[in-house]
């Protein structure tokens, strides 16, 4: 069975979902029986799963309040049109 340190290291080096299936199984087994490590690392995995869920939705919603100003948009359009004339 993996030690807590090995589990932490595996999760530090890879996202849970990116680990090969045999490692994921080993980790799950460890997390099931190890109370302390289980909690610390399960929290990392929960966060990663939540983010993955959001990512998989390919959500285009704008969550950050930043927008291109009209000036910036016109500037880019102008540069694109100059490029098209070349």
């Amino acid at each position, binding site marked *: 069975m993996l030690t*807590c340190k090995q589990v932490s290291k595996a999760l530090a080096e890879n996202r849970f979902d990116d680990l090969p299936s045999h490692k994921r199984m080993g980790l799950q087994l460890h997390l099931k029986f190890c109370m302390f490590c289980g909690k610390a690392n399960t929290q990392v995995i929960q*966060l990663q799963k939540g983010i993955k869920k959001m990512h998989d939705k390919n959500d285009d919603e704008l969550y950050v309040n930043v927008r291109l100003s009209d000036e910036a*948009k016109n500037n880019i359009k102008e540069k694109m049109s100059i490029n098209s004339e070349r």
Partner: protein
Amino acid sequence: MNDKEINNGPETWVDDHGDYLLQYAYVRLRNSAAAEDAVQETFLAGYKAFERYNGKTPVRYWLRGILRHKVVDYIRKSSREVPIDDTENNEILDSFNFKALGIFDQNPPDWKFDPEHAFERKEFMKIFYECISEMKDNLAQAFVLREIDGLSTDEICKQLNLTPNNLWVILHRARKQLKSCLESKWTKEANGVF
């Protein structure tokens, strides 16, 4: 993104995708001017490469792929200019407590809410990005590259000019800070709503 915007020609790109791409760049670069530059370069590069676009993915995600490279280049260049101080990191690494046989000697507090379900809520996503924006640059960049973009340890260390131990510590801090920020803000929001 509506159907009309999926694969429109370059003349409508800036209006259709400009804000989306700016947000993508801003979350990673945390600097409006740099994010705008990256978006502008992306549109110009996309325009030049449009002949090679095969239409298999919506144009927005094709442009986002180009932007991703621009963002990583920018981060790589700016990270080279920042010297790494390992002293503090080593202290934190020492504070990861493992008993004999590599057993964890910590009992972290439970989440105050279910993070997997919270990510399905739009209000939560706003708070999530708000919390990321409150992190220090190096924490936020490492966290986003790792947990949102899915880069490997090797890639992130290369881009951010870090050692794997630095990265481990940085991610540990980022998650800890994010957890506490999410708990505080989301609990407040949830109490206000329900």
